[in-house]
């Protein structure tokens, strides 16, 4: 049954995973996301839904456990935070290369290096441009509330299986740690092994008498064959760009200026829009919900309407490059960010807008 609860974003991820029929979670503790595995271990879903939960010896192991599980057609996920997700990049490119559906959650913290345990958005490039080697893309979802932390688990699995591609939930320490009201969905049973045979006939479920062997691999020794694999992947990414862009507009209809922000920055910018409007500046906010595929057309259309755009991120300026590509020189685009664990205030954003865009 549907339930209303007050939860942390991290707890919501765990609860949603159990409820939407996830088969396996494999992870390694790291702040600020350890509540995800802690919640799963406390809930003991192996006694109810049959979900497997395992603490691996490293993020390297946990992402490769995803490969093994996803290769069997199972719904498997992991979660980590920035340094741990860096360790996972090898596994992620193998998953993308072998076209395996799975879900990775990154509750981002400040970097580089060991950095800080405070929230940041400085893993944007790693997430949307391919943090590992080779030409590949992840489907990247950016929640900005505890509700979306819960809802995006199922959405990420749906998209991952629709396109046979790893999906990433790019969250941050704010969304992971803050508590909000969340409506939890009803329990969906896990897929049976018979259902998996039908849903994912490519999976290594044990070679039935009715088919040849299934092989999960990302290896093609012949360049001509590997190029074909790449063509297939690129065609798939185009399809994803065509079908799966998601974004939200806030007070854009009459806006003279536009803020672009995702995740917790978008929450801050919502307040900045209200502050600016109290001061007579008509500002709107576009919040990309999918970071790949990016809302290129939506931003490009708004560039015809507004006089300037400020990209607001808790980074030194990563997403701003995609905003500029989308705007393609139509209007001025600048970046404003606090980073290394610092969080901008709504007032700081308005000031930056005035200085960098309106006055600049």
């Amino acid at each position, binding site marked *: 049954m549907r339930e209303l609860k007050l939860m942390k974003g991290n707890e919501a991820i765990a609860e949603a995973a159990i409820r939407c029929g996830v088969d396996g979670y494999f992870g390694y503790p790291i702040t600020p996301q350890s509540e995800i595995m802690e919640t799963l271990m406390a809930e003991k879903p192996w006694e109810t839904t049959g979900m*497997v939960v395992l603490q691996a010896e490293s993020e390297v*192991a946990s992402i490769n456990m995803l*490969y*093994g599980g996803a290769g*069997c057609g199972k719904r498997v996920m992991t979660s980590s935070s920035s340094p741990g997700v860096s360790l996972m990049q090898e596994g992620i490119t193998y998953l993308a290369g072998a076209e395996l559906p799975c879900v990775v959650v990154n509750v981002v913290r400040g970097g580089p290096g060991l950095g800080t345990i405070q929230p940041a958005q400085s893993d944007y490039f790693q997430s949307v441009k391919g943090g590992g080697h080779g030409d590949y893309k992840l489907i990247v979802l950016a929640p900005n509330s505890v509700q979306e932390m819960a809802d995006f688990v199922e959405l990420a699995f749906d998209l991952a299986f629709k396109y046979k591609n790893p999906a990433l939930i790019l969250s941050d320490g704010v969304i992971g740690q803050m508590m909000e009201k969340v409506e939890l969905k009803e329990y969906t049973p896990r897929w049976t092994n018979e259902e998996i045979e039908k849903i994912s006939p490519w999976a290594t479920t044990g070679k039935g008498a009715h088919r040849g062997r299934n092989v999960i*691999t990302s290896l093609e020794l012949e360049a001509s064959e590997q190029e074909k694999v790449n063509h297939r992947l690129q065609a798939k990414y185009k399809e994803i760009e065509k079908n799966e862009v998601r974004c939200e507009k806030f007070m854009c209809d009459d806006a003279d200026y536009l803020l672009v922000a995702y995740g917790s920055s978008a929450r801050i910018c919502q307040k900045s829009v209200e502050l600016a409007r109290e001061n007579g500046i008509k500002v709107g906010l576009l919040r990309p919900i999918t970071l790949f595929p990016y809302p290129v057309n939506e931003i490009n259309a708004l560039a015809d309407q507004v006089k300037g755009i400020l990209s607001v991120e808790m980074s030194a300026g990563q997403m701003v490059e995609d905003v500029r590509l989308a705007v393609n020189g139509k209007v001025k685009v600048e970046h404003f960010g606090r980073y290394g664990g610092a969080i901008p205030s709504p007032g700081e954003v308005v000031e930056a807008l005035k200085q960098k865009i309106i006055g600049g």
Partner: protein
Amino acid sequence: MAEVLNDIIKPENQIYGKSEVLTDNVLHYCPGCSHGVVHKLIAEVIEEMGIQEQTIGVAPVGCSVLAYNYLEIDWQEAAHGRAPALATAIKRLRPDRFVFSYQGDGDLAAIGTAETIHACNRGENIVMVFINNGIYGMTGGQMAPTTLEGMKAATCPYGRDVSRDGHPIKITELLAQLPGTGYVTRQAVHTPAAVRKTKKALRKAFENQKLNKGTQLIEVVSTCSSGWKLTPVQANKWMEENMFAFYPLGDLKDE
């Protein structure tokens, strides 16, 4: 003479044949390499146990990266060293399936050391087949974690110097100490008798998986004629004289 032979070569007289679990693909391995024999033994064990449709193999990175071309079962090809992590998840999510990893010395005892030790320590109910030829074959004969002291390789052309390169690692002895491992043995395939013993060990390991007896580790001390720059016959002799002295054959643990 031909007539006599034709009289002999007929199905009812056949006492040996290729396992149906082996595909018809031509092996890419060099003459004298142990991989082909071990592949054949695994295929025969799978066939004799009647578990072809329930077995999932995990291939490594190394010479046996293409193992999935030779056994007609479902396979996953892992990143270098990560096969035990894949096998862990496969077995936990499909406990009704037989799961084995097939790994070389670089894969199992260097880059994948953490995955190997922790899979064994958790007592994952899988079979690990470990091919130890003391060299990196696929990349062209570089030093392996199990390369013997003084043994020459592309990255230790004057021989392994333990003061610089560290000592060859007896990973099987290490793993045998972990409570998670069940049957741990070291075998070889250089003589018909050794081949029979290795097959027996593989059969026992797969039977033990059925009984949930923890991680089953079968090391096969192997030859690499190309990497060792020896003929197949010389390689077998060199292995007996040098490899077996440091890596003695036999069961290390049987629980």
